[in-house]
């Protein structure tokens, strides 16, 4: 059984070499090494929390973030660096934590929203979508993200937070890289469509 720090927010007790990579930390964490576990969660808590907070209320987001790391420490022995980065692995766990907390009626609503959103017939190409997204200010982007379905929002935030490759995103979502790429493009197109319906909000 893993053992974690029992005091709150302790500073690391060992000095780590700068070249300790995440995969090595995971191996140590799997063996119950407390400093490694702490280093791991400190390195990735912001990214994981960003994904959880984009989908859940504050309390649930903190819960989901904590459960992500607890689940990660429990299953660290099965992490395979050949299948993707540690960050992608953690985000995969986080995505599952988020999904478990979605309520049934919200899921149905999200899927129905997706049907109707797609029915509006976006004709935005992915190059145009990327350009629109990268030019708006953060405030408009946050508002636009809230207008997307939960599923689209989770996808976009997860990919962006982890800067995931299509292969990594596919692993997080449980699908192929090609499909992950398609879903990402479509979600960005829908985000761009929402942004283009706003009055102009661009960064310079």
């Amino acid at each position, binding site marked *: 059984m*893993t053992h*974690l*720090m*029992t005091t*709150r*927010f302790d500073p690391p007790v060992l000095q780590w070499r700068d070249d300790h990579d*995440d995969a090595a930390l995971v191996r140590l964490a799997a063996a119950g090494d407390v400093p490694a576990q702490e280093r791991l*969660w400190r*390195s*990735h*808590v*912001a*990214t994981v*929390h*960003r994904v959880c*907070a*984009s989908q859940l209320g*504050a309390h649930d987001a*903190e*819960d989901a973030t*904590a*459960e992500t*790391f*607890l689940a990660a420490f*429990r299953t660290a022995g099965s992490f395979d660096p050949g299948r993707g*980065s540690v*960050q992608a692995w953690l985000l995969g766990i986080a995505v599952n934590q988020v*999904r478990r*907390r979605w309520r*049934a009626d919200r899921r*149905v609503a999200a899927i*129905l929203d997706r*049907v109707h959103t*797609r029915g509006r*017939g976006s*004709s935005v*190409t992915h190059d145009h*979508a*990327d350009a629109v*997204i*990268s*030019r708006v200010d953060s405030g408009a982007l946050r508002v636009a*993200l809230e207008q997307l379905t939960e*599923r689209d929002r989770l996808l*976009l*935030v997860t*990919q*962006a937070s982890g*800067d995931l*490759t299509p292969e990594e995103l596919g692993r997080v*979502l*449980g*699908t*192929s890289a*090609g*499909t992950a790429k398609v*879903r990402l*493009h*479509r979600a*960005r197109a829908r985000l761009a469509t929402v942004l283009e319906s706003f009055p102009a909000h661009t960064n310079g």
Partner: protein
Amino acid sequence: MNQSHTPHSSPDPAADAIRAALPDPDVATTERIAARIADGAIRDARVSAPGRTARRRVGILRPALIAGVAALATGVALLAPGADPSGTNPNRMALGPDVAAAEALQVAGTTVADGGDGWHPLRAGEFHYTRSSDELVFGRQRVITEQWIDLDGTGRTRISREPLFRAAGTRYFVPAQTCQSFERVKPGAVPDMDPTPTTLPAGSAIPACWSSPYAPIGLGHPVGSIIEAPPAGAPVEVDALFVAFGDTELEYGGLVREARTAAEARSTIPPGATLAGAAPLGPAGVTKPAGEPLTDEQVETDERGETPKVQPLLFDPATTWIEVESAPTISADVARKPGDTPAMMLPGSDFHWDRAIPLADVANLPEDAKELGALLRRQAMDMNAAEVAKAKAGKAAAVFNSDREATVALAVQLLTEAPMSPAARRATFTLLSDLAEASGATVDRDVRLADGTPTLAIAFPIAQPAQYDDGTDHRYLLYFDERTANLLGTRFDYGTTDTSISRWTPPARVTSTEQTPRD
């Protein structure tokens, strides 16, 4: 900032913008998360005990996701609650408006048993015929399972798919792909499946699996051979799939049935691009003029009759093609042996009524409710224990969370598929009534099936192990005909869109495996 993440070589300004728009947790939030992690570790250390194995919720007799195309739609409401628009149905069972589930089942048992005129035990030379249709999770295409079972438990199983779009006799080209299979997985794991089917080389042999209802070529019989490209102007159909697997949604392409010209498919879509346009799909398919841009809309249909819309597939120009001729149904037949579960059930599940009670013994089932209840409970517990052992060994299994739930499932299997006597049937309803009272089952009145049939719906709660509890209510719903009390259908409601609905027509007797009650 994550120091250990290796930046990717290609810039992604959109991702950068999204990431920058979202705040990092502040110090107070991070402290609270740290405290939760510490608390969680202590909780885990207290709960964990040597040898304890969490029961795996593999899927409680849900229809399996099967090889090949399972046409799927999202948000399909196959059961629509609503009042009888014509007012009170005078033929309904005599039930009060606030009837309890236990009482409703007692009344239903009396009603259905009284309708058993002319029943006799299954005789040599007769087959017990059952027919069920299963609407898969997100299913829009029904799969029909028919069984002919004789006294030895042998006979025939036939599985058919019914088309929703294409008229029989239409010829068109589809991508020539290998068959795929789906494996059940443990909750939280990534399913072991390759969502990208392999394209078969031009000139290669037609796979035998294409003749099954689960072939990737959809509702079509192959005509001719696998070729590099269809003739210019030929109608082309491209399929994509959307699969829900437990509470994990896997999408590889969207849901589409779209007919376009092959020239358009080949020439206007660059490799790796998202298609940019589509036309509404009519009952016989619609071909698009070459060069006309497509729009990103989604094709799906639901039982409410909404206009289908098209969602394009990420198109691979390396695809080879085969011409197919659509058929009204595609069927597969297997010789049945005792204990076979229909192919629509969870592969590897041994939880089936005729493993518990050989068909020849069904006629001798106890007619006393207490005695029958004891027998079914014992059988259900034994079968469930065997499934648990399989699940622990990492094999596919259908594990019930409690022996009570397993007993309900076994009772339902008998009611829908076994040639029970009217007295045994009444006793089974009494057993279900007792189980309803013990489990806190509830009644939904005025629930209609998609075809408008009014039903009495009894909802048994499905308990969830703590580690799988997602806060939603899970239920096993039984839909009884309000007049005859026949069990028309069941539904596993997991509080998500991941639901499955099975419907039965009343069993019948025939004298050969080539015969159906409609003949």
